[in-house]
């Protein structure tokens, strides 16, 4: 089925509840429905397996318009169906929950609640996701009339409520990990309830790296935002800038020159190599295999050199400008890239051999954290984590954008779904990337690097999807015709992949947990927005340190 037919099918499915249908741009269907019909409409799409829920965007249209909007985006290949719900802007804006239909929606819904003050009826939890604990109630940062003075800390609360000392119930004990990590370089706080060595419940608290970028974007102009979004994440900074500039160019109806598109893909490919090699090193380190860590990071320096040679910086390279790229690839760089790729390819083949044959490493990866195809679909996983379970979620393949139409990429999948498969998928992907990059360098189209961009972007809204190293990166951009965006909503892949850790940690040994966390390649800076609990820890009771000590002494007297 092509995307036209897909959209027609979606329109038929939604016909019963649809109040108004528009086609804002190619491959998009926008259906306005009433809040009461939301659950029925979502079930209709979900039950026929029409794509997957990619993101929920909340919007406050301001006190003048007196309305709030929630947009449920479903992606099916290149086709996107948006369910739009308009509600009056009152003190009680409520939406029915859909988390029982689509479990991963719980993160999106809690984001809606926290950032914009939507009340989610029937939702399991209204706990803080990524806003500090001392944030006042009923103050929502993404509301139009939010002022920073409103966010004064609440008396008697800490921004970061500390876990109780030694929390136990029965034979259980809670092990807190983070947010200052010995191995992982990013802040995130985990609590694993253990019964002996076995994890019985897992929960986490993020938000240590939440900076409030979506709000800041509304007060900066289109060009300033490019550099702001690049600094959402230092590892995939090009992908963020890519997705943002692609969206803004679509809104401004600017055609990016072919050479610029090819260079964007080139930098994105190099970034993928750097990101996956980095990941391989961190995972090896978690498994206690420091030799592999050092080797893979040594080889990663080859890519860093190439990135520096092309763009002038090792990290946060700013290769993009609105309307094109600012870095050209001349004959000298082309030669260096090819030499570098040849070297990397032999190394990647070597690593592929190591991760599939080294007995010690296989003991830590084979058959651990296995996610089946059905589970991957149910959890809404993205990127390599999904592809390791045989679910081909890759925007470059499903909905080719930019230069990927000219230089297509073949999707890599594995079937086992365990940690070993995730290693193999990522390394095989690098081989595909090396091949594609060589083709691009050989066939770089001639032409200019940039086209002229207007200062003000015409009013409208668009969706831009890009495949980041960790999965699908989703940008929703709305312009009201001024120099600033009206709303930018970003859904990063890590947000969708967290479930894979928390669900899979339960029932495993505590020692597997670091590997599970590393296995999904988490990026806190990117997503930083949730807390969630999986498993049953109902009989938790707080013990003071003294009580615990006495209990320990008594226990060993027996």
């Amino acid at each position, binding site marked *: 089925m092509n995307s036209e037919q897909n959209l027609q099918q979606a329109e038929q499915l939604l016909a019963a509840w649809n109040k108004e249908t528009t086609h804002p741009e190619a491959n998009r269907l926008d259906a306005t429905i009433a809040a009461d019909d939301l659950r029925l409409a979502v079930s209709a799409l979900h039950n026929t397996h029409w794509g997957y829920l990619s993101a929920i965007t909340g919007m406050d249209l301001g006190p003048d318009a007196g309305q709030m909007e929630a947009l449920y985006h479903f992606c099916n290949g290149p086709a996107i169906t948006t369910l739009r719900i308009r509600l009056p802007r009152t003190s009680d804006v409520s939406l029915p929950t859909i988390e029982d239909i689509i479990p991963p929606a719980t993160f999106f819904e809690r984001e809606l609640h926290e950032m914009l003050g939507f009340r989610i009826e029937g939702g399991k939890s209204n706990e803080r996701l990524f806003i*500090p604990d001392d944030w006042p109630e009923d103050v929502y940062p993404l509301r139009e009339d*939010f002022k920073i003075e409103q966010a004064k800390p609440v008396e008697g609360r800490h921004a970061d409520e500390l876990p109780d000392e030694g929390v136990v119930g029965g034979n259980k004990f809670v092990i807190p990990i983070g947010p200052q990590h010995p191995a992982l370089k990013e802040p995130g706080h985990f609590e694993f309830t253990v019964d002996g060595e076995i994890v019985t419940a897992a929960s986490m608290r993020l938000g240590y790296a939440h900076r*409030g970028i979506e709000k800041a974007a509304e007060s900066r102009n289109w060009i300033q935002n490019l550099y702001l979004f690049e600094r959402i994440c230092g590892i995939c900074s090009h992908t963020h800038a890519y997705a943002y500039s692609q969206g803004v160019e679509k809104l401004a109806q600017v055609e990016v020159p072919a050479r610029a598109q090819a260079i964007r893909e080139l930098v994105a490919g190099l970034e993928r190599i750097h990101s996956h090699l980095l990941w391989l090193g961190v995972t090896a380190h978690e498994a206690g295999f420091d030799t592999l860590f050092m080797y893979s990071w*040594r080889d990663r320096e080859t890519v860093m050199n190439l990135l520096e040679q092309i763009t002038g910086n090792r990290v946060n390279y700013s290769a993009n400008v609105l309307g094109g790229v600012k870095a050209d690839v001349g004959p000298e760089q082309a030669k260096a890239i090819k030499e570098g790729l040849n070297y990397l390819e032999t190394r990647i083949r070597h690593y592929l051999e190591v991760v599939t044959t080294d007995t010690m490493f296989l003991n830590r990866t084979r058959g651990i954290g296995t996610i089946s195809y059905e589970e991957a679909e149910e959890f809404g996983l993205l990127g390599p984590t999904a592809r390791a379970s045989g679910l081909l979620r890759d925007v470059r393949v499903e909905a080719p954008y930019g230069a990927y139409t000219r230089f297509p990429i073949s999707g890599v999948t594995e079937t086992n779904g365990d940690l070993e498969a995730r290693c193999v998928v990522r390394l095989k992907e690098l081989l595909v990337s090396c091949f594609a990059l060589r083709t691009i360098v050989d066939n770089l189209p001639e032409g200019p690097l940039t086209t002229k961009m207007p200062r003000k972007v015409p009013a409208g809204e668009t969706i831009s999807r890009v495949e980041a190293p960790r999965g699908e990166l989703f940008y929703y951009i709305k312009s009201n015709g001024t120099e600033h965006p009206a709303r930018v909503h970003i859904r990063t892949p890590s947000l969708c992949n967290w479930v894979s850790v928390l669900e899979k940690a339960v029932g495993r040994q505590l020692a597997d947990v670091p590997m599970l966390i590393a296995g999904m390649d988490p*990026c806190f800076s990117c997503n930083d927005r949730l807390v969630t609990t999986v498993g049953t820890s109902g009989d938790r009771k707080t013990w003071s340190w003294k009580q615990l000590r006495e209990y320990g002494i008594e226990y060993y007297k027996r």
Partner: protein
Amino acid sequence: MNINNDQLWVKVIKKVRAWARLNSIWAVHFNSGSCNGCDIEILATLTPRYDVERFGIKLEGSPRHADILIVTGPVTRQARERLLRTYEQMPEPKFVVSVGSCSISGGVFQGCYNVGGSVDEVIPVDVFIPGCPPRPEAIIDGIIQLLTHLKDGNPRPARKEQIIERVVA
């Protein structure tokens, strides 16, 4: 017991202690809301090309064993208290290195609702390393400057006097 600083054995012990400390600096890394850019560059300094272990510098997991606290990021509201706690858990003498533009001034995140501003508003900083992100060479240079300064028994570098509020543990 009264210890006279002029006594020979006191001088010798001080010298030995300084020698040992300067040749085995253990660093603890804290990300207070940075974009990862600085963090991956800090990790890169440990790996074969830059290899800070040749100066005896090692990344250590626990703040209780560390001499240097390397902080990145603009200090978000939620990370602030953990940063203070981590700092307080370190034994004296302790030094703080703040890496990256946003840890110095808030950088590109200045004015965001969840961002404090800079690391030196929270804890006293000895060395600032600017850059977005600074290159691994710059990070090594910053730490080595601190070490050379301390080498001859110099006092810690001049810094703003600050009152550090204690965290209720």
